[in-house]
């Protein structure tokens, strides 16, 4: 198994927030994780990244249980980028993780440059992170994770605190990551966040209630979610989306 978990449970005190979760994820998959507020999405991503320890069961990366040694391969992006920005300049912020693991300076510069170019922040090396917009801050947070060379990237509602422009900036970063063949799980309520996703995992009260193709998920009313606009036109107005666009907007 490239990445996943077996019989995973997690408790906050007596409150069991993840119940016997089993997941298998292949290299290069881009997966959407959906569910109501409080369904366990954030907890699942935190346990799968090694930030939280499972109550029972295990997370696996390349067939090995996740431990102190291999958890560096799993990157976690917080909902609020402010949670993970610490540097005085953009460059220093991205360098922080590398300094911690003792990467030589020349290698460091090379890796920082690469990470900043993937998130379209080249030219911002010496900027003060406090002066960045929300979208830029979230891209910086992503760069700080990418620079560590993760093989799996977990994103917890990465656009929910951003304005429309900021969201679009994150979408172009996600497109870059998909082109690079990265393995990504993104938790979100937004259909626009899930546009490039093929597979959806739905959590309800800590249990997986759906794991399959996005089209099937949207057609089946598994849980109440915001439908993509195109689906709404087709389902609720019984009209063909493309035809309607042609008729109205030509």
């Amino acid at each position, binding site marked *: 198994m490239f990445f996943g978990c077996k019989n995973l449970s997690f408790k906050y005190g007596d409150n069991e927030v993840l119940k016997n979760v089993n997941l298998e994820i292949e290299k290069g998959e881009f997966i959407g994780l959906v569910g*109501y507020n*409080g369904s366990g999405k954030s907890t699942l991503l935190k346990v799968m990244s090694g930030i939280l320890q499972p109550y029972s069961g295990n997370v696996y990366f390349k067939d090995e249980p996740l431990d102190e040694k291999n958890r560096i391969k799993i990157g976690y992006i917080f909902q609020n980028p402010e949670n993970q920005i610490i540097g005085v300049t953009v460059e220093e912020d991205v360098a922080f993780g590398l300094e911690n693991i003792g990467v030589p300076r020349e290698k460091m510069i090379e890796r920082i440059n690469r990470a900043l170019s993937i998130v379209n922040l080249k030219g911002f090396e010496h900027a003060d992170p406090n002066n960045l917009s929300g979208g830029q801050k979230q891209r910086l947070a992503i760069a700080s994770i990418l620079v560590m060379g993760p093989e799996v990237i977990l994103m917890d509602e990465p656009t929910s*605190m951003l304005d429309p*422009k900021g969201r679009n900036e994150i979408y172009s970063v996600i497109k870059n990551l998909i082109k690079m063949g990265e393995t990504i799980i993104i938790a979100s*309520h937004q259909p626009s966040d899930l546009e490039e996703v093929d597979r959806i995992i739905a959590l309800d009260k800590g249990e997986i209630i759906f794991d399959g193709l996005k089209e099937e998920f949207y057609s089946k009313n598994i849980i*109440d*979610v915001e439908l993509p606009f195109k689906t709404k*036109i087709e389902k609720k*107005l019984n009209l063909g989306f493309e035809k309607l666009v042609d008729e*109205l907007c030509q």
Partner: protein
Amino acid sequence: MSIKLENVSYTYGLNTPFEKEALFEINLEIKKGEMWLIVGHTGSGKTTLISLINGLLLPQKGDVKVEGMSTKDRKINIKDVRKKIGIVFQYAESQFFLPTVKEEILFGPNNFGIELTGEQIKYYLDLVNLPIDYLDKNPFELSGGEMRKVAIISILSYNPDYIIFDEPTVGLDYNTKQSIFSLIKDLHDLGKTIIVSTHWINEFSNFKPKVLLLKEGRELFKGEFDDFIQMDEQLLFDAGIILDEKLQLYKCALKKGQKDLAEKISNL
């Protein structure tokens, strides 16, 4: 009966090296019973405007009048202004500090010397669909959506005439969002004046609100929703407004004169 902003300007750190102009010569009249969206890019002055309306900030130039009371008039009691205006801040739940839901709800009214009956409290819980036994719960043990609802009741409970929502739907799941929209609709139907500061204009299109668009602290547009979305797209984009698929299609339907279809699209 209205809130009036007359030529209002506000600069943070005025007369210091850190001066930052936030609003410049804004004129706005929000009449009782209306619904307004305050929109614009991050840093355009939306939050400053809200803070000026209830007297958290006082205008350095111009005047803010709430039903005739000027917020900078030292002779009025600012509590009389604030009692009329409720602000539900973004992530309002982050302001919780009392051990039970009941105490959170009663804090505002008590401050204004208003006593709520058990019936009134139940009325507000019903309005947001929370069961009565939640009153004894610890607000920090509720889900994100429930917390947002309690935060909203804690504002409604002193019965303000004007209710300001600052990004009320951010981070909420579908069902909670829908209940917030229907609450806003109910409040508006009850005659409350609603002011929403948001980036997500598509979510409010079915209310047909009036719109104030701010760019770098200046008024770029003020008027009806349908006129707003028909503005030049580049101009809107530069002000941080992106019309999504829904509003694009709504706009097309309006232009073709297909009003019924436009209505259906805006309700999706």
